[in-house]
């Protein structure tokens, strides 16, 4: 037993630490090579003019100045994105909450309904997008055909300047199931005794919702609100597949414009500065939301 340790050994603690670092090594390599390196490079690139074919050239703030003062498309894509965020996010939270409230009722076959509402959110986004191009097809698509049955002539949807963005939002709302499941989990976490207490105090259904459900649910709603804002600022795939940014660039969202600058025009420096603007904007907005949260989000732990 004792003669099994002839060589000067590492202490147990050192050995444990070494093992720890070793186990973290793969992630560490990936982090340095594919995350921190690129993030730093992207920051530097934002101050350069680099179009791959010509050598990179330091231009200081020129990209940022051009973006803010002299780029019509930048402003337009930002406007389109803001429209999308401002319309989609509230609807998304509301639809998810209403569906969750509905699923929280006792009814026959509730598990089947839960599955049905959830499944669209796991459909591969390209397959879903193609399906919705067909559903929204003005002449033979499901929506306009159905509307025609009741003598309503539907809009041109994806081919219409006014309806292209609402059409994409409609499709995105079809995938509200993921947020719905989260809200449902939040609802089921509301302690039953609070409802009982409220009922004894004579609170009617609406009052119970307003004074028990909503406050207890507010952390969950805050959570999906924050995630939804972050995700919708980066809306890309549906627009790329369904409209390509058209018609007349009415669905040219920020990410789509960035993609074009980077991978169609190969304007890498310009695209990098665009990425940083988006990152900083979304980060700032998220921080603002956290600041505002104290006004409406109820955290049990703080009160007790």
């Amino acid at each position, binding site marked *: 037993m004792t003669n099994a340790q002839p060589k000067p050994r590492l202490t147990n603690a050192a050995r*444990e*630490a*070494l*093992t*720890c*670092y070793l*186990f*973290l090594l*793969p*992630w560490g390599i*990936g*982090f340095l*090579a*594919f995350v921190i390196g*690129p*993030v730093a*490079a*992207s920051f530097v*690139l934002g101050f350069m003019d680099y179009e791959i074919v010509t050598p990179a050239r330091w231009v200081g703030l020129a990209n940022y100045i051009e973006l803010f003062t002299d780029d019509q498309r930048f402003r337009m894509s930002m406007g389109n994105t803001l429209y999308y965020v401002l319309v989609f996010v509230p609807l998304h939270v509301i639809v998810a909450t209403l569906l969750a409230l*509905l699923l929280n*009722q006792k*009814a*026959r*076959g509730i598990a089947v*309904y839960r*599955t*049905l*509402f959830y*499944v*669209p959110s*796991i*459909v*591969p*986004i*390209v*397959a879903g997008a*193609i*399906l919705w*191009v*067909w559903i929204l*097809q003005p002449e*033979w698509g499901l929506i306009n*055909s*159905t509307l025609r049955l009741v003598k309503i002539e539907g809009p041109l949807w994806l081919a219409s300047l006014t309806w292209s963005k609402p059409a994409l939002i409609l499709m995105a709302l079809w995938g509200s*199931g993921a947020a719905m499941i*989260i809200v449902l*989990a939040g609802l089921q*976490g509301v302690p039953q005794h609070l409802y009982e207490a409220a009922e*004894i105090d*004579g609170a009617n259904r609406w009052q119970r919702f307003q004074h028990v459900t909503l406050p*207890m649910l507010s*952390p*969950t709603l805050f959570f999906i609100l924050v995630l939804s804002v972050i995700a919708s600022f980066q809306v*890309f795939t549906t627009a790329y597949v369904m409209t390509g940014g058209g018609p007349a660039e009415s669905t040219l969202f920020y990410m789509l414009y*960035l993609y074009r600058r*980077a991978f169609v025009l190969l304007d*890498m420096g310009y695209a990098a500065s665009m*990425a940083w603007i988006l*990152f900083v904007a*979304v980060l700032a907005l998220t921080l603002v939301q956290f600041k505002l949260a104290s006004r409406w989000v109820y955290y049990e732990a703080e009160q007790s």
Partner: protein
Amino acid sequence: MIRDQAIGPQSEREIHPGARWQPLRRLLERGGIQILLVLGALIFALPFVWMVSTSLKADRQIFAFPPIWVPDPFIWGNFPAVFIYAPMHLYFFNTLVIALAHVFGAVFTCSLAAYAFSRLRAPGRDLIFMVMVSQMMIPYIVMLVPLYLLFAELEWIDTFYPLTIPAMLGTPFYIFMLRQFFLTIPMELEEAAIIDGATRLRIWWTIILPLAKPALATVAIFSFMFAWNDFTGPLIFLNTREKFTLSLGLQAFMFERRTMWGPLMAASTMMIVPILIVFFLAQKHFIQGIALTGIKA
């Protein structure tokens, strides 16, 4: 206490003035909920029915008014027709290879890191953990342009490496989820093994991995679905058709044949069905996943 007594059976009426109508109201409510559920289910499910129905119809039934729901006759030809325009079998294979690399990364690399974060003490470990958590907040887009340039330098463009190697080195989200789960596994089993002189690698492999099967299933499914659905990555890093994934191939197919709705819907069905099968086989792991992210209010 006193209040409890004041509210006896007699005062029931005061609280609910319409108590007499309670049974009727109940019934109406139940009915209303059921109607809303059915309505909602229709809205969410009809697109799928429409997709499958279109994929089984001949053109003259696809372009018909009023819309036809049940194909007459059923036409299977749209499914083989897809392969004339898009080599779906290749896309399937490519997507599967990439997805399996993601699963490998999630199950092995991530769990190894998660084990270190949850069990092994080392100076700076918690700081490293914080760094990893903040990594989750960096949007992919910020790294995209330099990543492209890096992969171009490595001559990885139009290979699977950009879509597999980073994933195989570990993803913070999965490491985080697994760590949360490992923290719930009692230490006693390991302690016995340590006394017996087992190495940490051995403990991870023989004790932790078997105990963590439900959590591993969850990250495996999440990573599989992510890779299966990913569009941006393949779009940017792949160029030749033989290397396309399902997402990219399907998009190209639609771009070229925008009016072939029968084959297009058949192709979409073929892409969605495997995901639905995974989902129905592993429903409980999805729910588990939501719990593991620590979302619960």
